[in-house]
């Protein structure tokens, strides 16, 4: 009997609690795990600087999952900000609009460099998109014919590369980083090696052409990493010949264990990425619900604080962690766009 009473009381209590939670006084953020460390730093500093507001809650889970939550609707039971390591897709925006999230503001926070690194005991590595394409693509062009990738050693791809088995740990398809890798490395390499022309001649469908260019070999030489960079680091520690793909910030925090490769002869650093010399980088964004500005306490202040030079400038904690600050004029324009309320 007691047990039954307890159960009933607990159920009633939980429903009552749920009703009381309608008003929210804490910013909720979800999305990209690449943006997560930056969002965490800003959220924590925001909580310390503005004692009147609670520290925002930042969920991890990936760009796609974050935007899905973001586009569920407007109201205190939906999240306020979605972090994204790529631009929002048209299909996602359409989904947002159909759910009533018509006013979405895009905020760019800076750039993230994508670097290739091996174990620190290896010799210096000089990579080019062409080499990576030939080493990792599913199909390459040999003597004018499209064939399954025959290369097993880097030295077969380019005689200047080490005589080691091809083993690469690349971000899995759920990562936003994969898209950048495909576009800036595989596609560029496809073009540079001349394979694109052959593929264009052989395949008629434009979509299929692009897909053939960026398809990664599935014979175990290129391994998709669906976890985090810590997993890639562990794989490289186990296979000293392996080449891993990392974010610049992660590499800089583990520079004693890794040796970074140059791409097109450029060493990745915040400077070379900001200047555009280093070819593999991408902008990082977050998306804000305009309808929540002024409703969720502190949201407007949080976004303004995020965009302030003391957070995203070249001398900021985010830059110290590895974010590549956008050029001065671009930051100014981003701030203006937010204050003006420019929407997508």
């Amino acid at each position: 009997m007691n047990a039954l009473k307890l159960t009933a009381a607990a159920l009633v209590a939980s429903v009552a609690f749920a009703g009381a939670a309608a008003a929210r006084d804490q910013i909720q953020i979800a999305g990209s795990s690449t943006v997560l460390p930056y969002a965490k730093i800003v959220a924590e500093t925001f909580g310390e600087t503005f004692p009147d507001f609670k520290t925002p809650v930042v969920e991890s889970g990936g760009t796609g999952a974050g935007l899905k939550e973001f586009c569920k609707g407007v109201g205190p039971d939906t999240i306020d900000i979605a972090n994204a390591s790529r631009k929002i897709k048209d299909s996602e925006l359409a989904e947002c609009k159909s759910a009533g999230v018509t006013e979405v503001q895009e905020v760019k926070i800076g750039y993230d460099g994508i670097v290739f690194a091996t174990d620190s005991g290896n010799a210096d590595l000089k990579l080019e998109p062409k080499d990576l394409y030939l080493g990792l693509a599913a199909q390459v062009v040999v003597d004018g014919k499209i064939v399954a990738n025959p290369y097993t050693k880097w030295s077969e791809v380019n005689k200047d590369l080490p005589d080691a088995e091809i083993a690469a740990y690349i971000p899995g398809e759920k990562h936003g980083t994969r898209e950048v890798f495909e576009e800036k490395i595989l596609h560029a390499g496809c073009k540079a090696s001349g394979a694109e022309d052959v593929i264009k001649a052989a395949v008629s469908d434009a979509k299929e052409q692009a897909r053939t260019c960026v398809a990664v070999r599935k014979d175990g030489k290129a391994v998709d990493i669906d976890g985090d960079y810590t997993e890639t680091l562990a794989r490289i520690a186990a296979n000293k010949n392996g080449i891993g793909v990392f974010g610049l910030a992660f590499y800089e925090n583990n520079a004693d264990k890794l040796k970074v490769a140059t791409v097109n002869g450029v060493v990745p650093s915040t400077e070379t990425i900001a200047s555009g010399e280093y070819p593999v980088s991408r902008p990082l964004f977050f998306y804000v619900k305009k309808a929540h500005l002024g409703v969720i306490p502190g949201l407007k202040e949080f976004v303004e604080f995020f965009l302030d030079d003391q957070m995203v400038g070249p001398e900021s904690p985010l830059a110290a962690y590895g974010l590549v600050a956008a050029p001065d004029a671009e930051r100014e324009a981003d701030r203006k766009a937010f204050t003006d309320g420019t929407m997508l």
Partner: protein
Amino acid sequence: MTDMTTSLAGSSPRPAVSRRDIGIKRRYAAERRFRAYGIGAISIGIFFLGLLLWTVVSKGYTAFLQTEIVLPITFSEKVIDPKNERATNPAKLMTANYPLLVRDALVQKLGIDPNNRADVKLATDMVSASARTQLRDVVVANPAIIGQTVPVALLAEGNIDSANKGQIDVTVDEANRKVKDKQLAWMQTLAQDGAMTKSFNTGLFTSGASSRPEAAGIGVAALGSLYMMLIVLALALPIGVSASIYLEEFAPKNKLTDLIEVNINNLAAVPSIVYGLLGLSIFINFAGMPRSAALVGGLVLTLMTLPTIIIATRAALKAVPPSIRAAALGLGASKMQTIFHHVLPLAMPGILTGTIIGLAHALGETAPLLLIGMVAFVVDFPGSPLEPSTALPVQIYMWANEAERAFVERTSGAIIVLLIFLVVMNLGAILLRRRFERRW
């Protein structure tokens, strides 16, 4: 067996050759082999358990110590409150430039030229950015301290902490490591002065999440886990026990109850992420409960734990001999009195053991929490189960993905804490069973 063979050998003096071969050697050998397999299986298990504990403890014990830098901080009025407006505007104390106090103290202590900006930056980088809140809390708690010089133990920055614990390889080229040669030299100076000390890391237990490893703790996660365990206990135990009593004692045995039984057994084996999906669609999307809240997490874990509790309770009820029921009924007790006065008390140790094991299982669960938004960075302590919080295993998962070196030991440290919780719960289950279990 042995007796029989010896007596046989004793009573008949016939030569051994003519004895009927009953395969005694073969059977003994088979038994020895079987025992060896068993010991082998257990040793493999113990070996891996030992390996796990050894890696976790050897990596993690350092997390319970934290490097602190004791600096004589001059709480200069010029810096904190230059216009003397704290009486009228208390917020002034909240927003003062506290890092400047740290910088001044460091410059003085280490004898750095204050105009050498690069050196000053290197030096201030040695102290955690949390020093701002640390000093602010000191001043807000006791404004009278302004104008005095007091030694304050400030947290050392995560990389300095790692270097002090010998976790950073200082033989690597300076450009490739986070702690520079100058900082190492200063660390030595501070250590010789007794200004750099290692003390027990209370922050690990009392702080919430932080992007700075030195200031990060499992406090919020532990509180979130506690809320969820209380909710699971308050909901799953009564629901589970009443369901099993009904199914075991009252329900007619027919196809429907068979179907229910099969379903309960199936539910116990459903992957936990499925419960997360269910929680997301029912509790958050349909019932409108808040995201990331321990309440939703507790409800999801309740659903997950229910089948375990029901199965354990039914087994415990079945184990009570029918003679107890027959005797109670024979003395005129009603069915309900029989169950609540006699059967249930006797089954209680089994029920509680099942519940504790179910709770321990729920405590270690992360997958269902991912979908309901509890895999999150939460700094503020949740005042109620409705406010965002996270859970212990989630905190471990999030720290394992951090890039900073100092999070490695903290991950293992948090694992040690979680393991201690689990061991205590399971020990409790064993003790309960030992103390109250009755055998017939």
